[in-house]
């Protein structure tokens, strides 16, 4: 395989407590720690491992997002990606638009395999990979927990409700990663230093000729209601009665 494309997203770090903006239009990211989405990090790791095994020649990381997303791309480069591309946009961007932009990059870069995270931990959409496969008309295997490349076929073990399912896809193909696929590496210091010398190409979204107008309208963003205090019940029948009254059973 000549090339693997890994789209990655920068998200609010999973250890940070999200705060809703005062005007209720979204999550306040100013000054907050942003990191590479954990599923995307797994995707980078998998691509780099394939390269290290000699099964791929080149790994290209791409992100669609604000200028700051270059930090996440640099991390992908430090992990072992060869080059990176940022399609820069500050506005809200939905999975369909992201998928279209990735398709554009696929047309230019001509990878045989695209590995994405199954979802991003910020809005949990879980759509981009599937939409991309449809737009490209490529086979797809989502929720990968194991991946093996054999000639021009990729065998993907998927985590499904009933257990595991293994699919064999002819390349080119789209794969999205689950948590158990691998454990991302620690980057070495020399690789962090080298990463900043690797090519990172920035294209403004406007130059892509892709319609990125949001199709959804956000009516409001609210933090979840704080949990109400519990109440001690005398016995099981009171519990069952209360649950009935609350419409829970």
């Amino acid at each position: 395989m000549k090339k693997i494309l890994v789209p990655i997203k920068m998200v609010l770090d999973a250890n940070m407590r999200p705060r809703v903006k005062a005007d209720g239009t979204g999550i306040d990211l100013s000054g907050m720690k942003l990191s590479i989405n954990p599923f995307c990090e797994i995707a980078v790791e998998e691509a780099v491992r394939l390269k290290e095994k000699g099964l791929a020649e080149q790994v290209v990381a791409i992100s669609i997002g604000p200028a700051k997303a270059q930090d996440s791309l640099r991390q992908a480069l430090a992990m072992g990606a060869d080059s990176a591309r940022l399609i820069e946009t500050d506005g809200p961007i939905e999975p369909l638009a992201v998928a279209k932009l990735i398709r554009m990059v696929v047309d230019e870069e001509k990878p045989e395999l695209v590995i994405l995270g199954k979802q991003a931990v910020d809005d949990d959409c879980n759509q981009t990979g599937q939409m991309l496969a449809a737009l490209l008309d490529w086979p797809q295997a989502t929720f990968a927990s194991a991946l093996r490349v054999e000639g021009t076929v990729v065998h993907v073990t998927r985590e499904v409700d009933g257990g595991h399912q293994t699919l064999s896809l002819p390349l080119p193909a789209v794969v999205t990663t689950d948590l158990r696929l691998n454990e991302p590496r620690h980057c070495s210091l020399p690789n962090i230093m080298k990463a900043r010398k690797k090519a990172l190409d920035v294209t403004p979204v406007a130059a892509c000729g892709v319609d990125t107008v949001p199709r959804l309208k956000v009516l409001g963003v609210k933090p979840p209601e704080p949990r109400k205090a519990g109440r001690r019940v005398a016995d099981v029948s009171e519990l069952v009665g209360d649950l009935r009254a609350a419409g829970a059973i």
Partner: protein
Amino acid sequence: MPHYKAPVEDMMFLLRDVFRVQDIFAELPEQKENDLEIISSILEEAGKFCSEILYPLNAAGDIEGCRLENGIVRTPKGFAEAWKAFSEAGWGGLSAPTEYGGQNLPRTVQILVDEMLSGSNLSFGLFPGLTRGACEAIEAHASQALKDTYLPNMVSGVWTGAMALTEGNAGSDLGLLKATATPRADGSWTVTGSKIFISSGDHDMAENVIHLVLARIPDAPAGTKGISLFLCPKILVNADGTLGARNAISVGALEHKMGIHAQPTCVMNYDGCQGWMVGEPNRGLAAMFTMMNAERLFVGVQGLGVADASCQTALAYARERMQGRSPDRAGTVPIIAHADVRRTLLSMQSFIEAARAMVVYTALEMDREKFHPDATIRQRAGENVALLTPVIKAALTDFGFEAAVAGQQVLGGHGYIREWGQEQYVRDARIAMIYEGTNGIQAQDLVIRKLTLAEGLPVRSYFAQIRQTLAVAAAHSNAAPLAEPLGAALDLLEGVTTRLISGDLAGPDDRNAAAVDYLRLFALVSFGWMWVRMVLACAPGQPLPDALVQHKRAAATFFMQRVLPQATALSQQISAGAGSIMALPDELF
């Protein structure tokens, strides 16, 4: 359960918002490419390494300890693998010169990584710390041949370093040391003597240990002016760089000690071993002291790192431990609701965050001293570092130990029990007050040597910098209330400084007696200065998380109201002079 998370967010706040390192590094030709992005990725990745690989070995290493088996030191399970991973990831070469395989990154980044090493696993952190110290001494003073033979393998972690100064009769006063060296025909030396307390003196984690040994050559003058420095490898290195025969170096015993159990503290015997002189004859102590500032900054940061680790556990515990009632909350409350527990936590945090700021401030001065193109700026920065080094070393380890005890107290009985790790922090933190020059000796150094350094210019300029901040703060609504008490404490500090330099307290006993209190006063004012600077950096309109801004303002206020008042007492203690101390004859103590 206890955990350790590297405080990268706070570090980046200091670098980006308080000290604006991007502007400072822009003036240093060798460092100008190191922008905030790269520094943040380095700190993130180092933090991951420390919390995921080194921290899990910390408690187990303490319990297992090191063992001496047939003359060979065995480190605890997992240490050798961790050392290999650490070295392969290149962390040992962070600030080392590129020509020997390092990355030549600034001291400022190095010292922040050192904090993480100390917080996650102090015993482990000493291995790279001592290796780096040895590399710096070799790089500054050794011949090109020695550098080429030893530095690449030490920078890459294939070999480690040890520093052998102390002997049974020569600790604080190294002028008394007795180890000897006699010349050999080939230009090398035969080194003979016994050293005690040698950290990382031997172990099973790397192929070779390179000892830097202080010894006397024939006809050397007595005292500190007759000491030379020798490089003595545990295993001799052949001309082609491969390892040859064992050198006559052996471990006499491992010390049984209070803490840092996973760190082998060795009695070392140099039984006519072969060594090579580093630097000039009889100038060994001076050679060793060139990297002393860096080493002492490193030891200071050990106190800070362990204090932060203890604080992290204490804070997590205080949020969850339900005990007692509080006036404005219903039912049993988490202990973080109690004023006294909050006071304890804030006393820790108000020290830790100010100390970290002091460390960054000092390390930036070291970077200027090393990398600035302007010789005058290099000189001034170097003097400032010399002034602050004893303060950082002693204050951060004294307050760091106190903070570790406070963090233990928050856990009540569980703080005393092994399981939670708090008692280990107390034991581990204790050593940093003693080695690398006791804190008492640091205080002597500050009062006797550093106040009068360069005719007192460094200390005057330091105070002037604080005054400058106070002037800025006066016009700033959040900082002005902090500037007022700090100004008063600075007045007290300046008052006793003048008296110690040339006034009524300038006699030898008065100075010796005042030193420890004076250093503490100096440190409190310095921490206060850092708090004002941090609050100034939180000016409205900065894109900082609200939680961080609120936290900094509250901790700063706490520090000014509930810690800084100690300045008054300290200044009174100093003013009392040595009378009550010296009056009593030795035998009546």
